[in-house]
């Protein structure tokens, strides 16, 4: 089982849980498996082509998966995956 840390904005989908577990061999399979348990979660993390949204960051243990193999990054029992949506914005100039 892989431990997944759910960020505040996605906890409405996990019934308030901040940590959940799912079986998976890579990040993509993990997202599918989580979506089975918590329908709608995949839509929040991936775009309609199934790619991880640019403003969603996924960490495997201490590493950003963008610097590993992206959604094909392998995961194993005992790993910790964190989903971290970006916090961004701008001011009124040119907006």
């Amino acid at each position, binding site marked *: 089982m892989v431990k997944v840390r759910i960020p505040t904005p996605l906890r409405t989908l996990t019934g308030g849980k901040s940590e959940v577990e799912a079986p998976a061999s890579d990040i993509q399979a993990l997202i599918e498996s989580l979506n089975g348990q918590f329908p709608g979660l995949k839509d929040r993390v991936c775009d309609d082509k199934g790619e991880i949204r*640019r403003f969603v*960051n996924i960490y495997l243990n201490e590493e950003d998966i963008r610097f590993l193999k992206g959604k094909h990054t392998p995961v194993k029992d005992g790993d910790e995956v964190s989903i971290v949506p970006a*916090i961004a914005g701008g001011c009124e100039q040119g*907006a």
Partner: protein
Amino acid sequence: MIAHARELAPHECCGMLAGKDGRVTHHYKIKNVVATKEEGVKALFDEAKITTLEQMTSEERADIAFWMDTKDMFAAQKDMRANSVELLASYHSHPISPARPSPTDIKALALYPDICHIIISLQDPKAPAANAFRIANGTATPVPYHIL
């Protein structure tokens, strides 16, 4: 927070506040990495804003927008868990505009509808202002807060 905003002016600063039961006990300063987030900026900001951003130098970009460094966010969240506190609010500064969310803020910060978003304005350098909002479904609602 105001000190952090002043320290980084004219760039936008950003950070997170955490605590328990609505009372803030932890403050995390987060690096503004908007200048290095070309791809993300395109996904989140509207066309007009992107065109403006593309014509600017990375220094200038940080004056009108922010993007929290995810490495810093990740580290802050780890510290929150270690201290059993929760993320309660985000904050960022508007060096030269008012303390209210911009259209980009309303779009981008809606990713976090359950926390407060505090905006600090340095528009009047002698009287910095800060306001808190909840942002969801395209609207921002002011939230009252108390300084303890």
